[in-house]
């Protein structure tokens, strides 16, 4: 059965898994997330290996500010909840609710990004630039990679909202929404390790 076989008919229960294309997409995306796990893991291990080498720059314990990190964490955590609500709406074929939840997710994502940019700006002011030390290079690379993933997610989900407006919820668009939600959760999961390993452990010393 091809993708468009379902397109104009009745929408099945799990529209994201109704076609082989959709199932392939979900499986392939999961495998990609397996690869992403290793990618972030390597960034983490580079950070772990280099984190003590601060040279003349500020020490992680004096640099990091927990309230800001806590705020960012709360924002991202909430956005993960709103994105799962969007998937739930998808399963109930409630297109409008889904779009609303997706928009909330994007807004929260933008809020997180704003905080992160402010945070980086602040750090640079304190003499913690990208080239300052091995610690700073590996810090910005790890956290920056995560930030870039958030930014990509925001753009991606935004694009999908546009597509839903134009094409409606179909067996072609549903897998995309589902996969983007999985991606968003994955970003949140990575953040759990970032705030734990980078910020909290950095604060402990």
């Amino acid at each position, binding site marked *: 059965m091809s993708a468009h076989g379902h397109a104009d008919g009745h929408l099945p229960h799990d529209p994201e898994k109704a076609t082989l294309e959709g*199932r392939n997409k979900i*499986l392939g995306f999961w495998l990609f997330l397996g690869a992403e796990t290793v990618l972030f893991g390597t960034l983490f291990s580079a950070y772990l290996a*280099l984190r003590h080498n601060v040279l003349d720059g500020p020490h992680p314990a004096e640099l990091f500010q927990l309230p800001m990190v806590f705020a960012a964490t709360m924002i991202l955590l909430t956005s993960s909840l709103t994105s799962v609500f969007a998937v739930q709406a998808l399963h109930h074929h409630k297109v409008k609710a889904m779009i609303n939840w997706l928009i909330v997710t994007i807004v929260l994502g933008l809020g997180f990004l704003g905080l992160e940019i402010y945070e980086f700006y602040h750090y640079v002011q304190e003499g913690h630039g990208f080239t300052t030390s091995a610690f700073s290079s590996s810090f910005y690379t790890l956290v920056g990679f995560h930030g870039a993933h958030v930014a990509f997610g925001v753009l991606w989900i935004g694009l999908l909202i546009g597509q839903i407006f134009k094409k409606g919820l179909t067996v072609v668009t549903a897998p995309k929404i589902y996969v983007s939600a999985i991606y968003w959760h994955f970003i949140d999961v990575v953040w759990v390790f970032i705030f734990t390993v980078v910020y909290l452990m950095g604060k402990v010393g």
Partner: protein
Amino acid sequence: MAAHAHTVKRYKGLMDWLTTVDHKKIGILYLIAGFFFFLIGGLEAILIRIQLARPMQNVVGEETFNQLLTMHGTTMIFLAAMPMLFALMNAVIPLQIGARDVAFPFLNSLGFWTFFFGGVLLNLSWFAGAVPDAGWTAYATLSGPTYNPGHGIDYYVIGLQIAGIGTLLGGINFMATIINMRAPGLSFMRLPMFTWAIFITSALIVFAFPVLTVGLVALMFDRLFQANFFEPGTGGNSVLWEHIFWVFGHPEVYILILPAFGVISDVVSTFSRKRLFGYSSMVFATVLIAFLGFMVWAHHMFTTGLGPVANGLFSIATMLIAVPTGVKIFNWLFTLWGGSIRFTTASMFAIGFIPTFVMGGVTGVMLASAPADFQYHDSYFVVAHFHYVIVGGLIFGIFAGLHYWWPKMFGRMLNEGLGKLTFWTFFIGFHLTFFVQHFLGLLGMPRRVATYLPYQGFDTMNLISTIGAFLMGIGTIVFLINVFTTWAKPRNATGDAWEDGRTLEWSIPSPPPEYNFKQTPLVRGYDAWWKEKMEGKTEMIPAEPVGSIHMPSPSILPLIMSIGLFIAGFGFMYNQLIVAGIGLAITFGCMLLRSVFDDHGFHIEPEDQDKGVHV
């Protein structure tokens, strides 16, 4: 070619090849590009051997020599061996699992083009006059900005980064394909051994390549944006690069050799007319090798100074790999045992593989013993070892696979006489080149030396080695002659070209029609096609009625996306961030287009399905 509901533009000639998403055509593209890079890498090897033929020669200078050895290694591994494996994967896997295409035809095409442009970018370094020269391992700090200020390593970093994207996509694609697209009845424990090998290989790619990606990003940041990952002066650590490289690099070795194992399994079993001996232990051994492959990287670093605990652990872990590998060797031998062995070029390469690979394997175990490795490491002994494994293993496997599946890919049988000449020149040349190198290493010759002083006992063996290299070159040329002369002749291959075919690809015409299977076959056991033949049937039992077949549309976007990355790569290298931005914009723009415009594909109706099929 009637389109159903949607009209899809179909191209002819060159545009057909640039836009194709058909796995069979992509396989051919991989083969052409991979073999082209194989010739370049081979030429570099010949130049290396000419330089080393006699002591204190200056045929190429020391700097050029380092460039040659770096580009030889990088080209052979990333741009020749892996693409030729991808060629076989693409040509064979969907056919072996009874599928009409891979899970993601578009990504398949994208994977090819990113590999191709990454490879082209890397090789353009020769014209830019800034060639990577820190070895394919690019150890920091020799590859860092302080001691390698030119653009050479930038070509390495960015070329591999772009090519690596393609490889990762391929890995994901083939894993998803093998999981989701198998024909009805084809359970995992009925998969042909080659498919199993590719499944595991793809998994290795998925979990190993991201490590390289990060390593290259970090090295690129060090070089282009003054980061401090590997620079000891600013708190970085050069050993970290070694770890990252080998955490990727060792699985990479298995990414290369496991497909060859798969090819050998299929070829040996076909040409001895026997079921593969110990199939389930073969599967288990493959999985085990892959698993252990992630836990042995530091055996490349015994002399780095990790300390006795690490060296001991990695010694033992490495030795353990010999066990599943040994299981495979004996299973092949006992597949041949009691069989009816037919000597074709394919089977000769496969049978030549077994003793050759055993020799590479046993030197591997010798190297695993860390205290002894203090003597072998970075000497010609290691050079001999890994060429026995990679050339004697992988390249023999690829040649076996190419001769075996050539009729399926192109509908033409390669000439057996020329094929056997290829085998003997290549086989003898190979052993001549590399056998003596074991002794060179033991006598104290370090590897990667641009030349050597006389009176050290190295002269004769180096000369022998060079002569052998020329023989291998001749073997390769004979293969090319074989390909071109066969090309000029009409198609002559039947569906079951070797008559003893066992797996699904031999149940359909050679070359297969673009939809592969008119009706998806029903698989009733291991060696599905053999099983049906033994019951006197001449075709597979269909699992579905004849009907309209849905096909994905061709697309030019993968090519343009890869060109975008290529442009962005140059932009980053020469610090023209606007150019880099334009390149990335092209790539992301294409992604946007791909997302916004749905690909509905087209249908081939039953009445059109037999057009142009060679029976």
